[in-house]
């Protein structure tokens, strides 16, 4: 299998802030590689280095066989980039945006229409509408069409689904999954854990450091302890009470419940009584399967 991105010990500082600290990873051809991490973890900086927009302070980066520092001109022809920010011209119509990006990348919409057809057909009825009047999901679909119009070999998407409704997010990921057929490698970042499950491999990143890189399933099963799901009315009170117990290893909110791990992987004997004493009643405790998020939080706490 060919390697599309090979990054070795990439570091980048902004003043005193270490945005990236010795980041090493590689991406294989045709896979969807996800970067998962909270805001400010260094995802955008990393993507800008991949797309030749920023220079690393140290380390080497080879993208599609090109050196991302020396051969950036040649490399830029083969990258489709969708920045985290809205990257369309709001005063241009859907059609005009697409045509503009096609011309700038030296191609035409017709030439590569087959590639974007699946996405663009949703936009077709609105092609005369100005980009600023599109809904969030539509905007992202248009931005994706624009990033794909020159048939890039690598697609770099920085938080493409932030601020997009749930239905559009699902649609968007289905489109990304289809990229493999066209032999396009996808590098994507997201703050949503559920989207991580849709990647072939994910890297968990925090404060400029990669915590782990693996398939989503392996990451999940890497969860060491036993996880318990605790449910009770008044989540805030509950979480504080759980955290205060001397046998608790970790406790954090998850959806409408609290995920917790305990010393010896068992719920302490007097735990329900302890909670009742703290004024929390109707407690349900069940053992639960770990999600990728749980593993992430576990790694973060190391």
């Amino acid at each position, binding site marked *: 299998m060919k390697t599309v991105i090979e990054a070795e010990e990439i570091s980048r500082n902004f003043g005193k802030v270490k945005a990236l600290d010795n980041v090493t990873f590689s991406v294989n051809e045709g896979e969807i590689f996800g970067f998962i991490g909270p805001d400010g973890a260094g995802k955008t900086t990393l993507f800008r280095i991949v797309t030749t927009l920023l220079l690393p302070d140290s380390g080497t980066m080879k993208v599609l066989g090109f050196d991302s520092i020396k051969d950036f001109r040649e490399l*830029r022809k083969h990258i489709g980039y969708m920045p985290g*920010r809205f990257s369309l011209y709001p005063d241009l119509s859907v059609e005009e945006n697409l045509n503009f990006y096609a011309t700038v990348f030296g191609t035409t919409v017709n030439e590569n229409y087959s590639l974007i057809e699946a996405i663009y057909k949703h936009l077709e009825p609105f092609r005369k509408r100005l980009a600023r009047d599109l809904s969030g999901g539509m905007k992202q679909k248009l931005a994706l069409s624009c990033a794909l119009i020159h048939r890039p070999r690598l697609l770099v998407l920085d938080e493409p689904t932030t601020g997009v409704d749930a239905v559009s997010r699902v649609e968007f990921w289905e489109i990304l999954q289809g990229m493999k057929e066209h032999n396009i490698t996808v590098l994507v970042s997201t703050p949503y854990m559920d989207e991580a499950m849709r990647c072939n491999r994910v890297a968990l990143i925090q404060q400029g450091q990669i915590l782990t890189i693996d398939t989503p399933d392996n990451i999940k099963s890497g969860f060491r302890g036993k996880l318990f799901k605790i449910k009770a009315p008044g989540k805030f009170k509950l979480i504080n009470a759980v955290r205060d117990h001397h046998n608790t290893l970790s406790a954090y909110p998850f959806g409408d419940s609290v995920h917790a791990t305990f010393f010896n992987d068992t719920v302490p004997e007097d735990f329900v009584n302890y909670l009742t004493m703290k004024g929390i009643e109707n407690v349900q405790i069940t053992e639960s399967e770990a999600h990728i998020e749980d593993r992430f939080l576990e790694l973060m706490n190391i």
Partner: protein
Amino acid sequence: MKRFLGFVKKEFIHIFRDYRTLIILFGIPAVQILVFGFVVSTDIKDAGVAILDLSRDETTQKLTDKILSSGFFRKTGELLNYNDIDRIFKKGNTKAVIIFEKDLGSRLFREGTASVNIIADGSEPNVATLVSNYISAIISDFNREMNKTLLSSSPVVQPEVRMYFNPSLKSHFMFVPGVITLIMILICALMTSVTITREKEFGTMEVLLVSPLKPSQIILGKVAPYFLLSFINIITILILSWFVFGLPVRGSLILLLLETMLYIMMSLTLGILISTVSKTMQQAIFISAIGMMLPTILLSGFIFPIENMPKVYDYFSSILPPRYFIVIIKNIMIKGTGLQYVWKETLIIALMTLIFMALSIKKFSLRLQQ
């Protein structure tokens, strides 16, 4: 080339779809020319004068008629005594009081000399000077006529002043070239710097940078539409000032247009330079509007002569491109001179353009700055 044209086309769509840009581009220059031309006039027209005629004879009557019929003055009142002077000045619409001494006519015939007293409102020094000069001129003109008819008095040396290039000292001659100079640098620098920083703010710059477009293509693509529109603008201004103020272009029109193109080019490259140092549209607007406008108005010789400034300001103004363009445009439009008189200034502006261009291509980074 196709890429470049696609880029230019996109710029035109931006311009024509945003009516505010169009207003700034075409509305403001026209309005400024008209406002500066009409309102900021240093010519006297219908200035209020009051007459205190203590003599009331044929001569003073003639003199009064002559002054009032000149078109420069309008009578605001007939005063009866000296006490009225203070009162009428305080009313505000009188710029000067002309006092004819007692028995002016008979004295003039008997002794050959008589005096007229002009009291001007010194709270407006410029107007006061102008008004008193105009009145003195009219009176000396009157003297000459008297001398001719009487043939009695001794010959005197009479200075005959003629204002070369601008015989009637119309202030449009000063303002129109000045306003062209001011507007062009403001609009060109403002527009280009705003349009480039806008791409930065919208995040589209990131995509453009990743695209195979070269920086020079991005810069030229930004400049080309504004170059064309500014040129149309200049022609509109020239036509406007010809029809409204009767301002001629005495020199070669082609030379003037070529010089203007050079100046537009300089302003546009300056705008690009501004955009490379500013991160947001607001910054760009601030630098180009405030940073350019005041120095241009005050220090370029547009209104206040550079010769009268302290040396420090003189040196400072020598880095301002408008200073040189004002010389060029005044020479060509009003004096009708050719390139041989303005080549130095032309060269300086051309050099500045090259410097700005080199700096901005160098500073316009291929990557994102942090």
